[in-house]
């Protein structure tokens, strides 16, 4: 039996924004209102998709170069790295981490984004990587700018990078956002404030990591990610196949 077989611990909903957060107006009509049905893990939850290194290109984790056409994108160069672990503290190897973001001016390369800041011709704004054998990941990018959005009349998103992570079982699937240390917009943001536990929300703020900065080249930020853990027991056979 490997740790893969063990059941997931009940998700602690107290660290997540609830479905209905009226200050984030779009959630009002998109939030289920009935109680969810709790399921103990079956094979459908402890299994999940695996991805191979052969599916990714060599520049997929380099947002500075993966859409560069006539030059490099404008903005602050940044190195982002972190450790993907489960709640038991085990690094999660070979798991797919995907990320997307606005450019330095706060504009997304997306057909539905009409913000007046310009598209950067050399910046796509997305990338992906697999964690290494110990669960670490990294990528190079341009620090995204804040941008306005239609929520309140004067709503601005703090600078952020969107993250998607898989883990080893489909029940670990997670999408989240990373914020940057020191951004005064963070604690005005209804998405951040939707998280009921302030300490949990702080875990979305990546500290500046000068030790990982590349001198004369780029600053670094560290964003560690924790996915759900599994039941631990000294009597593994007892729970096996449960």
């Amino acid at each position, binding site marked *: 039996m490997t740790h893969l077989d063990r059941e997931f611990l009940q998700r602690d909903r107290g660290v997540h924004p609830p479905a209905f957060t009226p200050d984030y107006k779009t959630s009002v009509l998109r939030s289920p209102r009935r109680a969810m049905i709790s399921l103990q893990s079956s094979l459908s939850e402890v299994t999940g998709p695996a991805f191979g290194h052969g599916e990714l290109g060599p520049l997929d984790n380099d947002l500075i170069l993966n859409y560069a056409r006539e030059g490099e994108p404008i903005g602050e160069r940044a190195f982002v790295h972190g450790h993907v672990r489960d709640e038991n503290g085990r690094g999660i190897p070979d798991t797919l981490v995907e990320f997307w973001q606005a450019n330095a001016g706060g504009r997304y390369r997306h057909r539905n984004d009409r913000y007046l800041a310009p598209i950067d011709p050399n910046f*796509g704004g997305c990338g992906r990587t697999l964690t290494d054998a110990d669960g670490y990941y990294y990528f190079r990018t341009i620090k995204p700018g804040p941008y306005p959005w239609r929520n309140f009349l004067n709503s601005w998103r703090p600078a952020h990078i969107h993250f998607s992570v898989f883990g080893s079982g489909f029940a670990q699937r997670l999408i989240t956002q990373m914020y940057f240390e020191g951004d005064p917009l963070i604690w005005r943001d209804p998405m951040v404030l939707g998280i009921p536990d302030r300490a949990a929300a702080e875990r979305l703020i990546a500290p500046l990591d000068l030790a990982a900065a590349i001198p004369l080249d780029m600053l670094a930020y560290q964003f560690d990610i924790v996915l*759900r853990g599994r039941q631990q027991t000294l009597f593994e056979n007892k729970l096996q196949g449960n």
Partner: protein
Amino acid sequence: MVQPLPARLHETPSQTAGPYVHIGLIPHQAGFDIFETNFSNVLVGPGTQGERIRVEGRVLDGAGAPVRDVLVEIWQANAAGRYNHPADRQEGKPVDETFRGWGRAGSDFETGLWFFETVKPGPVEGRKGHRPMAPHINFWIAARGINIGLQTRLYFADEAEANANDPVLNLVERGQQRDSLIAAREDRGGTPTYVLDIHLQGPRETVFFDV
């Protein structure tokens, strides 16, 4: 003094995928190409075993309007009822190397329709001491306005007997709630199509699972 329990880490909080989720996860739909290989809503290859099916539907909000910027992912067993994952060691059910069992689709920006091309999964063993699970597809839904990904399942209307014995469906109240998980089969002269609308809210709210 009691000994403290060993520290457990806490899960990273979820945040909405936002309106531009396509950039990261299905960039072609955002309007550009960047990766050499892309993940898609087609789960089958030429050699995949099993009955080819199409699964489609819409996600509807509390006002009954289609959610036109939704991301839907599915995870399922192969035609033999085996997940392509090392934790699945069911005997007598081979892995189909051509079938990962996972797909990703964005809804159409105009109609809100999403679809997958896949095979109908076989039944999967249940938890120890429970009956097998009827053929089903696991769904995970993310979008602007959805603060944490929603999990639900799709079951097949033409599996009435297996559905009646399914240990998960039997946790759900009979009637409309259970029906919210069952996709009707439509034969349109080509690939059989299973249709399931997912209601985020309202009198027909879909059953979601805390897995």
